[in-house]
């Protein structure tokens, strides 16, 4: 998982798989938990930089989506 766009796509896939029943609820729950941790860690990084008043480019967040 390189960036947040990939994470989003992956979450969307997990959602579809959960609906179709190809993965169990427990498995999906674990994946959601990990995704939550990833998003929160990115958030914490953003907050840290905001408090320090610097604006570095966080690779995980700043992605140009390919159309």
């Amino acid at each position, binding site marked *: 998982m390189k*960036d*947040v*766009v990939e*994470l*989003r796509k992956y*979450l*969307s896939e*997990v*959602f579809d798989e*959960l*609906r179709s029943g190809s993965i169990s*609820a427990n498995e*999906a*729950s674990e*994946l*959601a938990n990990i*995704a*939550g941790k990833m*998003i929160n860690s*990115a*958030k914490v990084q*953003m*907050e840290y930089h*905001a*408090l320090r008043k610097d604006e570095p480019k966080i690779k995980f*967040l*700043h*992605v140009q*989506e390919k159309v």
Partner: protein
Amino acid sequence: MSVIGRVGRHEHLYKVIDGEEHKLCALCKQFVVLANCALGKVRFGGRRSYGNCKPCVSKKRKIYRQAPRHNEVKRAWEAANRDKVRVGNKIATAKYFCSEKGKATRAKYMAVHADKKREYDRRYSKEKVKNISDAYARQMLADYSPLKGSQFPQEIVNAKRELMKLRRELKGDQYERRSRTT
């Protein structure tokens, strides 16, 4: 107002009737009270020289506005400059909202339609939560955070939305299992 305008070659345009100063309207050819004359700040005497009575001016402008050629030109310009029109409208709306007249109108409307507004707000809020709108996802991200919701990039907002969707689905599954066991 200067008195110079009332002597010399403009003298015939002015007349004092019943102690009030009147000016001749070039369109209806009648003497009109000076207060009812359209303003023309750069004109001699501070009033418009042609079609100077207010009803005549408004009639003239109305005719001009309704002229088909004028409308065509206006629409063509608007079509070619959509961005300018949008910005202009936005500025005009903001100005009106901040003006005393706009505030009064809004207060009057709110007083009459308070229930309607409350109902709209409730419905909008419910829809926002149900559809996991951008605003709601940003609100969730900004919870317990020193950052504002608007400071988060769109990518993280989209990821948060997907995560919330998944969690909702899982919650629904849990609820179903719980209801089946009980």
